[in-house]
Every structure is written in structure tokens, then in C-alpha cells.
């Protein structure tokens, strides 16, 4: 199956082509959905087959390559369209195709009745195609193809309902924002690639990593390379300072938010750092920056998430926050913990989004939690699954989020320092609070909508079954990564599986220091207690005493307003970057410099010539005899010359 891995890439592409070209002529929605989901389902089977086959191989033979054809070859550059099948890419592949398949199925129900379902499924399949390229690539350039490809799909899907208004403008404006902000990051990625090529004369992962250890390269180069790459990661994974696009990306249909803007695409940055962990390990400065950015993003996004009223917005900021955790993990050298959290996050965040989608679906596109309430009795399955996901994200044992998040927090304490752990733990408390805030406001309490007009109902099976599957995964998914203190040596199956990939990087890092099991358990219980406290506070405020929320908001009006307006980051960017560039280009570069200065100079030159000729042409009196006279005078002069030369 490993040799057939290209099918996992090709099948989504075929699905895209079939739906994209013939979709508009297929009248039956179900057929379209079947093609779209089927392609991904088959791709999942292929990846699963490859996974099982790899599992059966001895540990040192688990990295395999599948070469297709030469893509770009110029000078010393030789880029193949080739796929690397190893532990990391298989894990990612399983997540992407697995969660992707579930969300595809869910979409059949969610998009039911939309007039261009075919386009939706085509885009989704294209996304999976790009994402698989990103994951499976054996070189930076092919990875970049996926990297930009997923950005494109994100753009297309955010603006899927292109004629719908969104906030102050349209969905397509949100899509464009996403694409452009991603592009800024992509330039960083590009420059990182160039520097890698300059340093190692190759862009193949294998060659680069081999040469990174053997070549004598100054540390500053590694710092620069990794920083450039990290700029790319901040763009794709919505970290400070390039996170602004993700909240807006919620303009897209909810399954898109679940698949692209929660489970898979946004984690590409994390995956990329994991993939190039060796380079990062050789640049301690960058590692520190990554950790700092990660933990601050986690905290910062969580605070915004506290007060948002749009259910998808809260989840979006939650995603940013959780991604911050993953970057924290990367920054502190806990690579496999980061990937583990990536996986569990994919489960529970996809579930949260799909649950939210289910709610939105039944509430006729209402997204504001202030108009929900008491939905538990109308949609029990959604309620139950959402609760599982909420527990998972809050880090309540034994749900999956507990294992992954705690592993990250523990490593951030042992590898870097207490401060990181503290900020991470506070964020965990905030996370528990805001997630249960929306949970309580949505499902518990009394309905705040007009029950005569709105009739909430449970979603059809095609939507609830994916929810249930994801709920099961969110609940038990953590058991493959039980920490060593509970499971013993090599008991953490997940990190053992990934260990060969990160071995080289971890050797470079070599964090020393031993900590007692007591300490670990202490920190673990502190964060669990914190999370439970967060849940209870949310319950107290939003269920028992709803008036507290309002009074607190009024009491700290200014803070509340800042948080509600997301620290005014969008506005700051708008006024410091976007406006000056547009206005400068328009009024200075174009109307002044181009039209007045350059063109003015050119036209002025032409004008002065024509002015001069205006005077000169007065000589053309039209009297032929005058011309003849001038000619004769000329002859006179010429003859003088002849005489003188005789």
C-alpha cells in the first residue's frame, strides 16, 4: 500500500475534477456527495493500508519514498514530485483523510439544498488534495505547493457564499484577507527555502537534514532559516501577529471551519515545524521565540474568546489558542506532544465546530449565542457530543485533551520554565470557562429565541453519526498517548511511534534535569482543578446567576470592550498597514509619481519639442520664392567654400 500512497493524493484530485467539471450537470445532490466523500474515504483506506504496512515493518525501515516524476529541474535544483511515507506523515495523513472523510459525510447533510453543492465538494476535495501534498511531500517545494494550495482552497471556501454579506463587507473579503495574510507568511516560507537551498544546495528533506548535521554552518544561519519558516507558520497557523484572518474565516460554511480552520489546514504550521524539527533544534533562539509566540497567542486568543457572542467566533479564537499550545510544544522541544495535541485537537475541535454547525443548521443560520438556550431537549445528540468535546478541550481526564494538553504543559515546565507553564495553565482555565460558557448558553437554561417561530430540531443521521464518531474519538483518542508516569517505560504508544522522526532533533536539544513523579502529578492536578474551577464558574455565572455576567461586563466596561473588539488589532492593522499602502499607492505612486512625474516628464519633453516647433514652423511661410531665396543664399555660401578650397 505504501507504493500506492499517491492514490491518496490522486483520488481527491479525481473527485475534484469530476465534481468540478461535471458537477453542475449532475442534478442529484447525493451523487455529488457520494463522489466527494467516496474519494476521501478511499484515500483514507489507502493511507490506513500504508499505515498498517508501515506498522509491520521494523522501526528502521519505516521511512519510505514514492517517486512520481521530475517536477522542476534547473541548474543545481532538482525537485521531484515525490512522497515521503514515514511515521509523521502517516499520522497526519490519517488525521486529514479520517477527519476529512467524516466532515465530508457531515457536509452531505449540512449543505443539503444549497444550489452549488457540487462546487462545495469540489473545493473540499481540492483541499484534501493540497493538504495531502503538504503532508506527504518529500521536499520543501512540493510542501509549498500544498501549503499554498490549502490557502487557495481556504480562500475559495471562505468565500463560498460569495454573494452573502459578512460583518462589514462580504464573505469574499474575508476570503481575500485570509489569502493575503497567508501570502505574507508564505513569503517567509519562500525565503526560508531559498536560504536552505543556498546553505545546503538542496531542498529535499532527507538531503537537507543530513547536511544540516554534517555541514559546518554557523548557528545564525539556522536561526534565520527557522525564523523565516516560522513566519510562514504564523501565517498559516494564525499565530501572533498574523492571526487576524482566522476569525474572519468563519464566514465560510461550518464544515469548512471544522475541516480547514480547525482540524487540518491551520495545523500545517505545526506540522512543518515538526517536519523540520532538526533545523529548529539547531536554532535555540528560534525555539524560544516559537515558545513565547505560542504561549502568548494561546493566552491572548483565549481572553478574546471569553466575551465573543458568535459561537463560531469563540471557536475560532479557541482554535488560535489551541494552536498556540501546539507551538508552545514545538518551542519547548516536545514535538511528539505537539503532534499529539494536534491530533486530539483535530477530533474535539472538529466536533465542536460540527456541533455548532448542527445548532446553526437547526436555528436557521443564527450564530449568536445570546439567542440560543435550552437546546438540550431539542437536539440531544448534538448536546451530548458537544459536551464530550467541551470536556476534552477543557482537559478533564480521561478525555483526550487532558493527555495531550498536560503533556505540553509539563514539558514547557521542564524544558523551559515555570512562567510558560503558568501562562499555559491559566489559558487552560480560561479555555474551560469560555467553552462551557457557550455550552451552557446554547444548550442549558431557558430558550431565548421565539419558540413559535423557530423550531429547533435534531439534525439528520448523516450529520449526527459523524458527530458520534468524533465524540468517541475525542473521548478515547487520548489513550494512545498516556504519559509515562501512568503507563511506564515506552508506554506512550504515540510518542514511541513518532520517536524515530524526532530522534535527531531531540538529541541536539538534550534537556537535562530530572523531576519527581510527585511534581508531575502536582502540576497535573493543579491544571485539572483549574479547569474544573473554570467550568464551575461558567456554570455559576451563566446558569445560576445570569445577571453577574452583565454586571461584571459593566463594571469592567473598558476591558470588556477591548476584549469584545479583539484588542482592536484589525483596526490597528487597517490604519497602520492597509490604509497607508492603498492611499500611498493611489494618491502618491499612481496619481503623483506615475501620472504627474514620469508621464509628466515624458509628455513635457514632447510638449517642449512641439512648442519649439511652433516657433520654428513660422519659417514656413508658404511663399515658395522665399524658400528659393534661402536656397540661393545657401548656394552662395557653398560657393564661397568652393572658392576658398580652390
Amino acid at each position, binding site marked *: 500500500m505504501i507504493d500506492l500512497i499517491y492514490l491518496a493524493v490522486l483520488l481527491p484530485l479525481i473527485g475534484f475534477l469530476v465534481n468540478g467539471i461535471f458537477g453542475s450537470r449532475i442534478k442529484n445532490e447525493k451523487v455529488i456527495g457520494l463522489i466527494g466523500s467516496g474519494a476521501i474515504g478511499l484515500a483514507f483506506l489507502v493511507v490506513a493500508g500504508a499505515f498498517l504496512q508501515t506498522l509491520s515493518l521494523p522501526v528502521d525501515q519505516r521511512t519510505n519514498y514514492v517517486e512520481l516524476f521530475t517536477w522542476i529541474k534547473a541548474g543545481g535544483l532538482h525537485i521531484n514530485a515525490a512522497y515521503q511515507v514515514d511515521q509523521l506523515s502517516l499520522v497526519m495523513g490519517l488525521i486529514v483523510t479520517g477527519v476529512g472523510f467524516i466532515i465530508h459525510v457531515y457536509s452531505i447533510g449540512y449543505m443539503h439544498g444549497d444550489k452549488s453543492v457540487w462546487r462545495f465538494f469540489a473545493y473540499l476535495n481540492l483541499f484534501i488534495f493540497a493538504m495531502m501534498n503538504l503532508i506527504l511531500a518529500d521536499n520543501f517545494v512540493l510542501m509549498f505547493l500544498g501549503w499554498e494550495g490549502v490557502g487557495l482552497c481556504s480562500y475559495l471556501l471562505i468565500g463560498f457564499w460569495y454573494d452573502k454579506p459578512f460583518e462589514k463587507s462580504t464573505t469574499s473579503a474575508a476570503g481575500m484577507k485570509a489569502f493575503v495574510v497567508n501570502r505574507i507568511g508564505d513569503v517567509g516560507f519562500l525565503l526560508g527555502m531559498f536560504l536552505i537551498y543556498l546553505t545546503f544546495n538542496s531542498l529535499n528533506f532527507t538531503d537537507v537534514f543530513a547536511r544540516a548535521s554534517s555541514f559546518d554552518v554557523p548557528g545564525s544561519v539556522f536561526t534565520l532559516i527557522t525564523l523565516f519558516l516560522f513566519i510562514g507558520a504564523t501565517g498559516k497557523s494564525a499565530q501572533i501577529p498574523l492571526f487576524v484572518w482566522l476569525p474572519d474565516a468563519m464566514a465560510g460554511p461550518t464544515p469548512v471551519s471544522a475541516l480547514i480552520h480547525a482540524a487540518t489546514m491551520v495545523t500545517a504550521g505545526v506540522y512543518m515545524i515538526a517536519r523540520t524539527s532538526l533545523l529548529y533544534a539547531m536554532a535555540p533562539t528560534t525555539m524560544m521565540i516559537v515558545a513565547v509566540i505560542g504561549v502568548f497567542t494561546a493566552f491572548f486568543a483565549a481572553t478574546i474568546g471569553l466575551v465573543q457572542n458568535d459561537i463560531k467566533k469563540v471557536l475560532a479564537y479557541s482554535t488560535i489558542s489551541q494552536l498556540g499550545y501546539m507551538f508552545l510544544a514545538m518551542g519547548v522541544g516536545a514535538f511528539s506532544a505537539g503532534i499529539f495535541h494536534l491530533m486530539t485537537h483535530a477530533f474535539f475541535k472538529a466536533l465542536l465546530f460540527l456541533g455548532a454547525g448542527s445548532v446553526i443548521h437547526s436555528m436557521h443560520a443564527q450564530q449568536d449565542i445570546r439567542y440560543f438556550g435550552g437546546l438540550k431537549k431539542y437536539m440531544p445528540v448534538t448536546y451530548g457530543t458537544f459536551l464530550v468535546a467541551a470536556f476534552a478541550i477543557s482537559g478533564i481526564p480521561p478525555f483526550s485533551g487532558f493527555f495531550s494538553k498536560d503533556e505540553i504543559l509539563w514539558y514547557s515546565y521542564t524544558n523551559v520554565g515555570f512562567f510558560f507553564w503558568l501562562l499555559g495553565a491559566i489559558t487552560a482555565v480560561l479555555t474551560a470557562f469560555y467553552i462551557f460558557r457557550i455550552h451552557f448558553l446554547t444548550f442549558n437554561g431557558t430558550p431565548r429565541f421565539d419558540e413559535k417561530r423557530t423550531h429547533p430540531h435534531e439534525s439528520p443521521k448523516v450529520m449526527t453519526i459523524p458527530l458520534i464518531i468524533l465524540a468517541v474519538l475525542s473521548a478515547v483518542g487520548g489513550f494512545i498517548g498516556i504519559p509515562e508516569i501512568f503507563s511506564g517505560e515506552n508506554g506512550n504508544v504515540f510518542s514511541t511511534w513518532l520517536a524515530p522522526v524526532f530522534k535527531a532533533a531531540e538529541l541536539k536539544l538534550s534537556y537535562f534535569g530530572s523531576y519527581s513523579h510527585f511534581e508531575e502529578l502536582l502540576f497535573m492536578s493543579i491544571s485539572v482543578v483549574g479547569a474544573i474551577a473554570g467550568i464551575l464558574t461558567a456554570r455559576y455565572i451563566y446558569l445560576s446567576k445570569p445577571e453577574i455576567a452583565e454586571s461584571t461586563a459593566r463594571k469592567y466596561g473598558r476591558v470588556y470592550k477591548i476584549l469584545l473588539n479583539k484588542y482592536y488589532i484589525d483596526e490597528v492593522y487597517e490604519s497602520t498597514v492597509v490604509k497607508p499602502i492603498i492611499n500611498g499607492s493611489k494618491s502618491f505612486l499612481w496619481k503623483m509619481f506615475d501620472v504627474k512625474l514620469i508621464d509628466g516628464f515624458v509628455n513635457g519633453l514632447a510638449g517642449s519639442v512641439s512648442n519649439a516647433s511652433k516657433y520654428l514652423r513660422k519659417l514656413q511661410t508658404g511663399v515658395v520664392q522665399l524658400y528659393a531665396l534661402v536656397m540661393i543664399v545657401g548656394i552662395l555660401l557653398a*560657393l564661397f567654400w568652393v*572658392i576658398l578650397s580652390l
Partner: protein
Amino acid sequence: MSLVAVLFIVFGLISLTSAILMVTRVNLVVSALFLIVNFASLAGLYLTLNAQFIAVAQVIVYAGAIMVFFLFVIMLINPEHEKRFLEYKPQIKIFAIVIAVLIFLQIAYIIFLSKPSGKLNKEVSQSISAGTIEEIGRQMFINYVLPFEAVGYLLLAAAIGALVLAKKKFK
């Protein structure tokens, strides 16, 4: 003084006088007639140079055909006469005359300075044979047949052109 010299002086004087008169007369017809006289005297001068064919052609073509043509046109359109010789912007015209005279002096100076007669000795027999119709005809139809043909076409084109240009436009 030989007959040739006498003839040269006579024809030379006639041609010069008629030229000056032709330029200065206000009446066009009179000018044209003086030009005919001038052409005829030039034909005489050609004879003194043993160029019989050209002399005859001069009389037939120039004094005959072309000048008749001129007279026709003059009479056809009958333009108003200039009132005086230097009627319009006399300063410029006097200036023009001065320039022209200066050029004449220059040419004369060049001619006398280079003394072409010192290098040229006229062989009368050669001169006579060069001017015969046979000789000219031989040259024309052997060495210069292409220009000859071209001139033929030129005349044809000119004839057509003149026809088109002068034709009245009927509506």
C-alpha cells in the same frame, strides 16, 4: 575675326538681351515671345558648337512645342499682369538680385581661375562627328537605351498626369 566668333557674339548678345527682357517684361505674352527668341538664339549657339542635331531639336522642341504650349496656357487662363517689375516687397527682391549677381561673380571667378581652355583643345573634326545624328543615335540606342525607354515612360506618365490634373471635374 572668324565667322564663328561673329556668330557667337551676335547670338550671345541676342540670347542675353532677350533673356533679360523676358525677365523684366510685365506682360506675359511678351515675355514668352522673348523666351522664344532666346531659345532660337541658343539654337544658333549650338550650331557654332557643331551640334546640329541638338540645334534642330532645340528649335522644334523648345521654341516650337514647349513655348506654344506656354502661350496656350497663358492665353487660356489669361492671368492679370503684374503692375510693376518690383511690385511686392521690393527690398527682398533687390536683395535677391544682389545675391544672384554675387553668385554670378563667384561662378565667373571660378571659371577664370580654373582656366578650362588651357586644358581643352578643341578638335573641330571630332567636335563635328560628335554632334552628328548618327553618333548621338548610336549612343542612344546602344549604351543609353534604358534611360531612353525610361524617358519614354516618363513622357507617357506626364501626358496622363497632365490630362488628369487639367481635366475639368464634371459633377
